[in-house]
């Protein structure tokens, strides 16, 4: 078991959170969608496991490299 932080690739705002804490998650799943430069930028899990924390709220600005969620790996 390890806690892996999932980071935002871009600077933008949180548009829609697609998953909730406690959900099972696989590598490639979309956790949330950000909006940046008129594009929808998905935040994609790079781990298999369980989503244990969401660190941002919808409409909140985020910056590149900011941790936005935590996945506990199986």
């Amino acid at each position, binding site marked *: 078991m390890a806690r892996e932080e999932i980071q935002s*690739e*871009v600077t933008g705002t949180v548009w829609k959170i697609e998953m909730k804490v406690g959900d099972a998650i696989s590598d*490639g799943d979309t956790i949330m*969608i950000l909006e940046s*430069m*008129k*594009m*929808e*930028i*998905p935040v*994609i899990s790079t781990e298999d496991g369980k989503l244990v924390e969401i660190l941002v709220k919808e409409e909140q600005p985020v910056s590149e490299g900011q941790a936005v969620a935590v996945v506990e790996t199986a």
Partner: protein
Amino acid sequence: MSAKTPIEELEQRRRWAEEQGGAANVERQHEQGRLTVRERIAGLVDKGSFQEIGKLTGSEAYDGLTLKNVTPAPYVMGLAEIGGRPVAVGGEDFTVRGGTTAALDKRKGGQGGFAEDMAHHYRIPLVNLIDGAGGSVTSAKRRGHAVFPGVDSFDRSIDLLGEVPVVSAVLGSAAGGPAGRAILSHWSVMVKGASQIFAAGPAVVERSLGQKIGKEELGGPAVAVDKAGAIDNVAESEAHCFALIRQFLSYMPQNVWELPPVVSSDDPVDRCEDALLSIVPEQRRRAYDMRRLINLVVDKGSAFEIQPSFGKALVTCLARLNGHPVGIVANNPMVYGGAMDGPAARKQVRFVELCDMFHIPLVFLVDVPGFMVGLQAEQAGVLRDGMRAVYVASQATVPVVTVVIRKCYGMAGMATCHKRGLEFRVAWPSAEWGSLPVEGGVAVAFRREIANAPDPKKREQELEEELRAYGSPMRTAAAFGVEDMLDPRETRPYLCRFVALAQTRLKTELGPKLKAGVRP
């Protein structure tokens, strides 16, 4: 000393060389979290393969006619092997006078010298392990005159860039000459927390500009790699750095007169990943993970990303397809929708030239809406940088396959194709292209018609709908405007076949590539 046989004297002199700058200086180097140059070479090359050259060099101390000691010259170099292939390797010994230059009859290496000459003469790759401070005003006092810039010529280092792979690792604080030499490489790397590189260090900056700034802040990876793109990659540690160097060289031929090495691959050529079917979202505004796409297509674990943190609207990787080295140039829709800005264009130019020089076929995975637009991009010279990418793509002679994943627009789109070659372009069903996207394009082309319509907004939408219908990639394929459409799952087998085919062509173009013209 006098009682010793010549063989004993030789052995004694070799031991002095091994002692480097003495136990205290070696310990200080370790306390800084850094290895000595001898440890570095041992960590980098195949075990036991290092044949040192010039081991006896140094300044001798005599008591009358009796030799007391030899302080080694602050540069260690020789011949070694990496992955079973010969390389020239050299680096400053920071434990001897901070790796400054030595007064020898000829230079061992660094800013030109025997190591560089050996790489040129035997046509083998060169690895620079840089840990030296460069020029010092004190040399003027020693010589009795100031030295004109270029007394240690960069010409050999410059010529090598057209002959053999050159790798530089910045392993300490590099300023001046050593910093310049790091840039004269095909690929460069620095170590997080341990390396800095700048034209001039903090003391000079403070004196010149009154700016107080630390060396990490001025020339650590956050500046030199992420912002400036002066150094290509960052390693987590020196050991990681050596692993990266070995990996980089594994894709490279020994020189431009040879083909890059083909390895055996146990990843099936016909691996058709279902995940490719859904990787591009149906929503046109939604980005996706291009790196994931690359990894689904190339041989498993073979992708080696160059400049991952610079010009992030583009992803450039060395990789393999059925064991054949290939250069992947892919737009990254996560950053500015993949629009080509100055840094992304400079990254593409450098990578395309690298692959062209070393006969590595190129695969473009295209999702580019065009050059970056806006005042900031224009001020930064996006047109010149972008057109240089078009120019360099046009001059490349290595085989190119273009796979349009989604958007392919405008001049940035032109930079992904090889019109002078076969102009071989295939597309996924998600592809769309044109001079410029329908959105925005319609507003400009039909400005009067839209303005005069009873409901301008509605008319604009109607026109967009109408034009979008013509945008189906299948229509262009029917006109042979692209050569084929692929089911995304077929991408790997398709590319494997054409990259293998390219080998025949590549053999006919071995040797240096001389290009005429002034790049825009």
